[in-house]
């Protein structure tokens, strides 16, 4: 019973306090951050009672406006699929977060709570099984729209997303080989180890640098953001969602941003130590140069959760930077990049990892 209540609280926390706000923040960052790096100001005029909040209020206006915008359902479309697709897009990204640990075990009032919604033994498989639901959402929405641009966008999306799905999967094999588990929590815990007398944490980024270089573009491609925004391809085919109006379009957009949050979370979890803070152990900091700070358990947990969030925010920021820096791929180049560069390299990564592990054994 306690676990169920805890789960509900955790889920509410994740969804209400983490995913949606993070997506919201990312949308804000999308505009504000791009503005700052482009020497401009970005949305800052919208205000409530004189509070402008650096343009955050503008995002609120966007959301409200999308709610009260005309809900256009094209008579030439397949109505059921047309309305189902945005639902599916949102649903698919919301559920993915279930297996990502955002904190260590927390002993609270005698109960031990895992700061993770579901520590499934098949965490990886859960993710790879459910995340691609989003592909269906796009494919269905694009097809249902019955518009040539969206049809092109849809078929591009399918081609792109399934291709990079393979690389995402393959690039993480090395990581699984290193950690010997597909349980995400376990992976994070193992990243709390250290090398070289505790100087360097055993984070995925050090264990699998090539894996990171492969996973990062592949994961990025899964979020359909520039330079991988071919399904949208605004200046070519306007986008797979061009017949959607108001919030239905907003849901597609929001799912993209949540995907970015998830990508950030996955990068954090796999390669940057998850909720681990370097040299923070369950009883406090133990620095390799000999300094020690003991901290109460709750403080440690909070620090670690904060660490997770900070990393998340950083990757959100970084992904935006990349998104606003690069031009867009072409479809065939994208596919070639995936199958001819990333995929063989991922295979190579598996082989190299195997050799290294065998040698070290």
């Amino acid at each position: 019973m306690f676990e169920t209540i805890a789960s509900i609280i955790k889920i509410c926390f994740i969804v209400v306090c983490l995913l949606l706000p993070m997506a919201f923040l990312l949308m804000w960052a999308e505009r504000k951050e791009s503005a700052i790096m482009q020497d401009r100001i970005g949305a800052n005029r919208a205000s409530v009672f004189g509070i402008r909040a650096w343009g955050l209020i503008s995002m609120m206006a966007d959301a409200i406006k999308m709610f009260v915008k005309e809900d256009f359902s094209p008579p030439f479309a397949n109505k059921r699929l047309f309305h189902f697709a945005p639902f599916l897009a949102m649903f698919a990204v919301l559920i993915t977060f279930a297996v990502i640990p955002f904190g260590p075990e927390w002993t609270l009032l005698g109960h031990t709570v895992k700061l993770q919604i579901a520590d499934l033994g098949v965490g990886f498989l859960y993710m790879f099984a459910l995340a691609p639901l989003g592909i269906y959402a796009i494919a269905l929405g694009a097809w249902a729209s019955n518009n040539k641009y969206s049809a092109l966008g849809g078929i591009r999306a399918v081609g792109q997303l399934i291709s990079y799905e393979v690389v995402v999967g393959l690039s993480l094999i090395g990581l699984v080989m290193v950690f010997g588990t597909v349980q995400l929590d376990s992976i994070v815990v193992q990243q709390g180890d250290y090398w070289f007398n505790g100087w360097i944490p055993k984070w995925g980024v050090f264990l699998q640098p090539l894996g990171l270089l492969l996973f990062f573009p592949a994961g990025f491609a899964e979020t359909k953001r520039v330079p991988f925004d071919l399904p949208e391809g605004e200046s070519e085919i306007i986008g797979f969602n061009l017949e959607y109006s108001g919030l239905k379009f907003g849901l597609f957009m929001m799912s993209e941003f949540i995907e970015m949050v998830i990508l950030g979370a996955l990068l954090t979890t796999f390669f940057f130590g998850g909720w681990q803070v370097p040299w923070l152990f369950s009883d406090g900091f133990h620095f390799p140069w000999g300094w020690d700070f003991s901290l109460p358990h709750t403080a440690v947990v909070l620090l670690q959760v904060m660490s997770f969030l900070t990393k998340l925010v950083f990757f959100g920021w970084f992904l935006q930077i990349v998104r606003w820096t690069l031009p867009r791929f072409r479809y065939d180049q994208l596919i070639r990049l995936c199958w001819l560069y990333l995929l063989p390299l991922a295979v190579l990564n598996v082989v190299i990892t195997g050799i290294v592990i065998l040698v070290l054994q």
Partner: protein
Amino acid sequence: MDFNHDFVAVAIMLGLAALISGAMVIIKGLLGPRSTNPSKELPFECGVEAVGSPRRGMHVKYYAVAILFIIFDIEIIFLYPWAVHFRQLGLFGFWQMLIFLAVLVVGLFYSVRKGVFKWQ
């Protein structure tokens, strides 16, 4: 590990996600003005009238990629259990999987030579 409990949590997650997404879609369906006119009921194509339907056979190249995906994705699923138990399997397991991967790579090479990724 209480698997039951974790799956309950997943179920709750699924339910909540469905609730949120569904609520958004349904509430959106109720709000907003509505109007129509003959032009609005046509698909948008840069302001000119669309000729022909989008719903017809897509180019075969897209399907070639999809077929490759099916092959490789399934193989990757095979790789996961192998990777988890890689340390236990040792060198023999490594060679086995190397052969397996070699076959895959040969397949990939074959498809490259067949021009799956060539678009013109």
